[in-house]
C-alpha cells in the first residue's frame, strides 16, 4: 500500500519543493512588519472613500440678556453602507435642522436624516446627490476579543484620522453588543468606521472612556485622547440600519411600567447601592400587567442580568424587539417572582429618559424593609449567578 506522499506524482512533488524554496525567500525581501503596514495601508485606502465628515446645524438662542440667535454645529464622522446611505451616530444629528456631509475627496452635499435611534445611538442619512462606495458589514466572528480593528474617521478641520488596535472586551448586554477597542479615537470620530482586516465594517465608533481632562487643566485646551474606545458592533448595527431604512425608526420593546430608582445605604453616610427598578404604576393592558406586576414590586433581573437602575432596564427593554418573550424577576414582600413576559411595542420613538445621566444622584428608596430587601437581593443575585454558570456550562 502506497503512503500519502508516494501517491503524489513526481511533477507535483517538484512544484511543492519549488514552493517551499521560494516562499520563505519572499519573506527575506520584505519584513513581516513592513508587509503588515502595506496591508493596513491598502485596507485604509480602499475604505477611506466610504468615510465622510458629518456637519449638523441647529439654531439656538444665547442666554439672556443678549438672547441673540446663533448657529451651533456638531461635527462627527459617518460611513457609507449603501451608495447614498450613510450611518452615523444619533449624538451627531439629533435635533439638527440642517445636515451636510463632506467626502474624503472634498465633495460636499446636503443630507437628509432618514431615521434616528437614540437607544442604539445610530442615525441613517441619505445623500441623493452623491454616490459613495459602500462598505459591507463583517461577520460577528471578526469582532472577538483580540481581533484586529482599524478605525477610520475624521476630526478637526475634517482631517482624516486612522488608528489600529484590537478588540479588548465585549460587553454582551441583553440584545445589544458593545465592543471596547484599544484604538485611539479623536473628537469628531463619533460615527466613524471600525473595520476588520478584510476592510469590512465591524462596528460604528460611539465614544471613548470617560471625558478626558483638557490638556494641562486648561479649559480652553483640546481634550486628550482617551485610553479606550467604544464601538457598537455590526451585529447590533445591521438590524438597526435595516429598520431605519425600512420604516425610519427602530421598533422598541415596551413593558408598560413606570419605575423609580431604589437604593440601599450600607452605613450612616455611606455610599448608596442601587438595587433595582421600583414599580410605581403599571400601564393597563400592558405586558407587565398581564405578567402580574404590581405597584411596589422591585424588578431585579431581566434576561438573567442583574438590574440596578431603571434606565438600565429601560434601555434593555427598548433594545429588545417587540413580541419577544423575556424573563423578568421581581421581589414582592420579600418573595422573589419570575415570569415570562411578551414585550409590546413602545409608542414613543424618542423616549425622553435616553439623555439622562446614569450617574445622576439617585433619590432615596422608601425606607421600609430595606434590610429584608437587601437580603432578598443577595439571595436572588446568587441565584442568578448560579443560573448563568449553569447556562454557560450547558453551552
Amino acid at each position, binding site marked *: 500500500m502506497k503512503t500519502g506522499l508516494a501517491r503524489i506524482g513526481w511533477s507535483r512533488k517538484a512544484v511543492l519543493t519549488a514552493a517551499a524554496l521560494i516562499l520563505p525567500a519572499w519573506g527575506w525581501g520584505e519584513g513581516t512588519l513592513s508587509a503588515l503596514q502595506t496591508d493596513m495601508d491598502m485596507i485604509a485606502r480602499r475604505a477611506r472613500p466610504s468615510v465622510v465628515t458629518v456637519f449638523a446645524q441647529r439654531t439656538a438662542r444665547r442666554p439672556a440678556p443678549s438672547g441673540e440667535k446663533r448657529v*451651533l454645529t456638531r461635527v462627527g464622522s459617518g460611513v457609507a453602507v449603501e451608495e447614498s446611505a450613510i450611518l452615523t451616530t444619533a449624538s451627531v444629528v439629533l435635533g439638527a435642522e440642517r445636515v451636510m456631509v463632506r467626502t474624503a475627496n472634498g465633495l460636499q452635499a446636503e443630507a437628509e436624516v432618514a431615521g434616528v435611534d437614540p437607544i442604539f445611538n445610530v442615525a441613517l442619512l441619505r445623500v441623493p446627490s452623491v454616490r459613495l*462606495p459602500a462598505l459591507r458589514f463583517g461577520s460577528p466572528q471578526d469582532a472577538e476579543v483580540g481581533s484586529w480593528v482599524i478605525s477610520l474617521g475624521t476630526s478637526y478641520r475634517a482631517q482624516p484620522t486612522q488608528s489600529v488596535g484590537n478588540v479588548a472586551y465585549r460587553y454582551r448586554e441583553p440584545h445589544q453588543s458593545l465592543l471596547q477597542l484599544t484604538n485611539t479615537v479623536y473628537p469628531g470620530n463619533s460615527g466613524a468606521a471600525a473595520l476588520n482586516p478584510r476592510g469590512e465594517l465591524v462596528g460604528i465608533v460611539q465614544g471613548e*472612556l470617560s471625558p478626558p481632562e483638557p490638556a494641562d487643566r486648561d479649559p480652553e485646551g483640546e481634550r486628550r485622547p482617551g485610553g479606550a474606545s467604544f464601538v457598537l458592533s455590526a451585529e447590533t448595527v445591521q438590524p438597526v440600519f435595516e429598520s431605519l431604512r425600512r420604516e425610519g425608526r427602530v421598533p422598541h420593546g415596551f413593558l408598560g411600567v413606570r419605575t423609580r430608582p431604589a437604593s440601599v445605604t450600607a452605613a450612616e453616610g455611606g455610599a448608596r447601592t442601587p438595587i433595582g427598578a421600583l414599580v410605581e404604576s403599571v400601564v393597563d393592558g400592558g405586558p407587565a400587567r398581564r405578567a402580574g406586576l404590581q405597584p411596589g414590586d422591585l424588578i431585579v433581573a431581566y434576561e438573567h442580568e442583574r438590574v440596578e437602575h431603571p434606565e438600565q432596564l429601560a434601555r434593555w427593554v427598548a433594545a429588545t424587539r417587540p413580541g419577544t418573550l423575556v424573563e423578568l424577576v421581581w421581589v414582592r414582600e420579600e418573595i422573589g417572582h419570575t415570569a415570562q413576559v411578551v414585550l409590546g411595542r*413602545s409608542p414613543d420613538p424618542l423616549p425622553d429618559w435616553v439623555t439622562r445621566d446614569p450617574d445622576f444622584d439617585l*433619590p432615596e428608596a422608601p425606607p421600609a424593609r430595606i434590610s429584608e430587601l437587601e437580603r432578598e437581593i443577595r439571595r436572588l443575585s446568587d441565584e442568578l449567578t448560579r443560573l448563568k454558570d449553569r447556562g454557560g456550562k450547558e453551552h
Partner: protein
Amino acid sequence: MSCERARHLFDAYWDDELTQAEREWLEAHFASCTPCHGAYEALARTLELVGGLPRFEVTSGFAERTLARARRAGAEPDRVSARAPRWIPVTAAAAAALLAVLGATVLQWGGMPRPGGRSPGSVVSETIRQPVLVGPAPVARSADAARGTSSTAGMGDGAVAVVPDSIFDHSEDVEFILDPFTLRKGRAHTRISSPQDAPRGQQATITF
C-alpha cells in the same frame, strides 16, 4: 380560530400597522399561545436574516456585456478541449523548479521586493472608487460661500460649496462629537450628548 386570526395579523404587526386594540389582542394571544408566539419569533428572525443579507451590486453595463457574451458563446463552437495535454504538468513542474533556483539565488544576493511591488507608502495601483456627485448640484446657501470664501474654493468642477469655512474654525459654536463612556461594575455606560440643552437628572421616574 383565534390562532388563525393571530397569524393573519403577523405581517401587519411586524410592519407596525395594527390598531392599538389589534396589537393588544395579539400580544395577549402571544402570552397565552406558545405555538403562535413561536411562529411569530420564527417569522421575525427570518425577516431579519433576509433583510441582513448583503446586497450585490453589478457594474454599469453588466446586463449588456453578459447578453453579448451569451450570444457569442452561442454562435462560436466550444474551443476548450475536454482534457488538457499530458505535457502541461511536466513543463509546469520544470518551470517551477527553475524559478525556485533562480529566485533563491537572486534573493541571496540582495533581496527583492514582494511580487506586485507594494511597499509602505507606495501608490496603490488598483483603481479605488471615489465618491462622485450625481444629479443637479445643490445651491450654495451660506454667506461664506456667497462671498467666495468657501472651503471648496479652487476645487475642481463638480464640488458643491455648502459647508461654510466658519465650521472649520473650531469656534465655540462648533462641537466635535465623541460620547464619553464610564465603566461601572463591568458595564460600560454612556449618555448620548443631547443637543437640546435638556435638563439632566430631573426625572425621578421613567415609563417604558
